[in-house]
């Protein structure tokens, strides 16, 4: 297997005008952005258009971009802004212009627990329950869990992406985990009684 260049090396090459770095950046992140976009909208055309526009913007403004960034976070954040703008535009189209809310709702999660062959039945059962509980959490809490655990973003980055303060973000994660723990305790007790 070939060793991949670190994101930041690629980023710096791209900023200094390297076309092949630009293409590698696209190859590396188009899929991530696509999946990320479809968490917030089911409109695949819109998601693809936003990827298109994002990379055109990146190319256009490349000389002015900051070098010291977390590339993934930077891309997700710029991309999310495009998605929000696009959905505002299209919601005006569908006469939904009164909805002035900035953020898009995040869709429910479906997990592939059965594919995880290293787990035993009990663990799978537990994960199934956890999955159910997670999908019942308030949407903003679910969004944080997604950004934290799927995209490995820092609290500061999540807060910036979701336009909330860092302490609020920490509290949300803490509250979500606490709620999950509370619910799981109950279900584990039930499970133990069952087996």
């Amino acid at each position, binding site marked *: 297997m070939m060793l991949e260049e670190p994101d930041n090396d690629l980023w710096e090459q791209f900023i200094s005008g390297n076309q092949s770095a630009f293409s590698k950046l696209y190859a590396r992140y188009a899929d991530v952005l696509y999946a990320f976009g479809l968490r917030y909208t089911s409109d695949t055309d819109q998601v693809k258009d936003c990827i298109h526009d994002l990379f055109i913007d990146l190319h256009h403004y490349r000389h002015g971009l900051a070098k010291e960034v977390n590339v993934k976070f930077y891309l997700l954040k710029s991309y999310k802004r495009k998605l929000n703008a696009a959905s505002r535009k299209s919601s005006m189209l569908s006469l939904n212009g009164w909805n002035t809310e900035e953020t898009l709702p995040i869709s429910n999660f479906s997990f592939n627990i059965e594919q995880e062959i290293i787990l035993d039945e009990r663990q799978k059962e537990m994960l199934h329950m956890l999955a159910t509980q997670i999908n019942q959490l308030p949407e903003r809490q679910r969004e944080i869990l997604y950004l934290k655990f*799927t995209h490995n973003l820092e609290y500061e980055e999540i807060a910036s992406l979701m336009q909330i303060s860092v302490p609020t973000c920490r509290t949300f994660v803490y509250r979500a*985990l606490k709620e999950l723990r509370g619910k799981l305790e109950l279900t584990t007790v039930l499970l133990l009684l069952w087996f």
Partner: protein
Amino acid sequence: MAQKDSNHDHADDPEDEKKVSENTRLLFGTLKEDILPAAEKELIWNRILEYVHVNDNTVQDKPFGRVIWYQAAAAIALLVLVGLGYSKLKPNREEEMLAAAKQVSFNSADTQLLLDDKRTIDLKGENSDVVYQNEVIRLDSQTIARQITVAQKPGLNTLVVPFGKRSTITLPDGTKIWLNSGSKLVYSSDFQNGKRQVFLEGQAYFSVTHDTENPFYVQTKNMNVKVLGTEFDVSSYDDDSRSYAVLAQGSIELATEKDALFGPKKTTLIPGTRAEYGELSKGVRIARVNVEDYISWKEGYLKFTNTPLNEILKKLSRYYKYDLSVQNAEVGEETFSGTLDLQENIEHVLDVISTTTSLSYHKTERRFILEKGATKE
């Protein structure tokens, strides 16, 4: 004191919390994510390159790939203008409800309750019940019974019943609504405060609690129904060019051509009649009908009187979520009378149809095709 309490909370079982965190990470590792097909990925990249290339070399020229986008932008501007002019003629709430209904799709396999605080609750099973009771919503379907507190701020809620499923909902004023397959109902959270107003796409049977002070409004794409307290059935499917309301008891007032310049056209219905609105003719036709034919679905059977086979199949395909069609067009026009038991599975129902009609059917995946000819033995 409060500060201290919360500190204590934080220190509470760090082991457990770590475990939950680890499991959550493990779980998110199995998250099903949508995959961008390789061909699409390349297509987008080619479009990016084309744009970047053209733009870098010939700044003055309008890039070819962008022309379409300009056209699209013009179309959007026009539509928005039309939309704004249009909305001023109508009460705001109605528009919002319509938009809320349009926002959700029938993608989910389960019946879903979308609450105004963006919570989405899946209701498993073929039939589910939602009941507003004091400060809580009671949800019971075959497997789950949960209680959820009603949100504080009024907003719009949507109950989405996909094809193949049914649901009932009892609103805070005691009004009970039976929703048939492939239906959406939008209602406000401030239902108690005299705002008895719902939006319907699909088919529903309403049993409205009497309240002379506050009329109950059912809005659909093409018509509004105003009632004081009564029982009636409304059908307004998006893929049907006709909407209708059938009155079982009481009296209702119907408003059609809602956007007409001189105000909507009003029609009053008496029990045992059906008002049918044709989207093409833009007119209302009133006819005396056998009410049972229109409301039997909520009791789990379908009753027909001289109904064309096509219409019967359409109802069955919504109910069972199967694609049903006839091979010979003229057969679809033939009319039938009788009763079909919807508790049975689709094959059984089709057996009943084919034995009484001398048609036979064959199955391909989720599709049944009926054709003329002797039934295979």
